[in-house]
């Protein structure tokens, strides 16, 4: 039961942290919670579908379909997080003023909401499909003790959601003047970490050279299966034994998104927010 709880916890934790951080980051975006909830539900449905078609996905592209699928999902998530962060850095100030009418006036506010939907949907889909498969395996086996294991699964899920909620509640306590900086950095690191994970899958598929594998090994110091390692894995993309190319992807994503944020924050002469896209 304990092993089951740990496995489910690990999968749920990643999605829960992503949702927790986004929920906090978009606290002043109208209806953001509703879009996050819709994304979660869609993601769960998608997770079921992906789990059901695991064998089909896996057999695509001569046996490396799963890696390609994961890399594409992660790649889309990185682009969406980048867009979100750049959007937040140009509208963060207006949102910080807590004027909901301002937020409603922002012309691309609805696009931001659909971005939220996609990011949460993808995060839940990716992490959820493995959980669904794992729990299905337990339910289908006739080894007995299913009740104990399903209890473990529920425990792990609730624990993961609790950590996600904790980071959300914690972020809301951050004073407003640092709030957008803090959530911006968190989202930036999430995105860079996902870019590194995408590279990891492409190396596993033998589509990318590893450029030194592993580049370092800190598994004795900070193992990835311990709680700090697990948290850091999601939050900053920590990998105990990364391939060199993962670092290249990580730094490239980091630099590209930072540049975009700087660009979005550049001083403007425009006064009326509706003209900002010009």
């Amino acid at each position, binding site marked *: 039961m304990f092993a089951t709880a740990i496995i489910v916890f690990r999968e749920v934790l990643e999605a829960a942290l992503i949702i927790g951080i986004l929920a906090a980051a978009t606290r002043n975006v109208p209806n953001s919670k509703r879009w996050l909830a819709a994304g979660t539900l869609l993601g769960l449905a998608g997770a079921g579908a992906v789990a059901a078609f695991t064998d089909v996905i896996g057999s695509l592209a001569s*046996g490396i379909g799963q*890696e390609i699928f994961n890399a594409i999902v992660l790649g889309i998530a990185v682009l969406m997080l980048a867009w979100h962060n750049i959007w937040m850095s140009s509208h963060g100030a207006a949102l910080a003023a807590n004027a909901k009418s301002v937020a409603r006036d922002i012309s691309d506010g609805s696009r931001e909401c659909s971005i939220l939907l996609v990011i949460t949907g993808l995060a839940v889909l990716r992490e959820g499909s493995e959980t669904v498969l794992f729990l299905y395996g337990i339910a289908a086996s006739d080894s007995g003790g299913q009740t104990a294991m399903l209890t473990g699964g529920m425990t792990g899920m609730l624990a993961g959601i609790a950590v996600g909620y904790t980071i959300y509640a914690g972020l809301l306590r951050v004073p407003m003047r640092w709030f957008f900086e803090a959530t911006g950095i968190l989202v930036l690191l999430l995105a860079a970490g996902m870019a590194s994970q995408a590279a990891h899958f492409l190396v596993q598929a033998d589509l990318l050279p590893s450029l030194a594998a592993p580049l370092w090994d800190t598994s004795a110091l900070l193992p990835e299966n311990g709680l700090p390692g697990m948290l850091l894995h999601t939050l900053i993309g920590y*990998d105990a034994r990364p391939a060199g190319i993962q670092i290249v992807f990580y730094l490239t994503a980091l630099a590209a998104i930072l540049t975009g944020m700087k660009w979005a924050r550049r001083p403007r002469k425009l006064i009326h927010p509706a003209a900002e896209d010009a």
Partner: protein
Amino acid sequence: MKRLLLISLLLPLAALAAEDNYTLLIKDHRFQPPEITVPSGKKIKLKVENRDATPEEFESRVLNREKVIAGNSAATIHIGPLAPGRYPFYGEFNEATAQGVIIAQ
């Protein structure tokens, strides 16, 4: 950076060299054979055939590999080139029984 670019241009050439193929079975939540000996310094193509009805996740922290294999299906995992040594792997969904090791020499 320039050197890194050069290396990345050259490496796909190395990847063209033929990979060695190995097959691993999963049956009753165990790996067969539980030990695979492979040459070091070479890329390996590991075909994992899951003969169980339930899915399994091939996972190895040392190799930095993880892959879900659906019930009654097969998947390919690319590994290496490896330095000589022992590289344990396990089935994450049935860790108690599904244990194995790749020995590179």
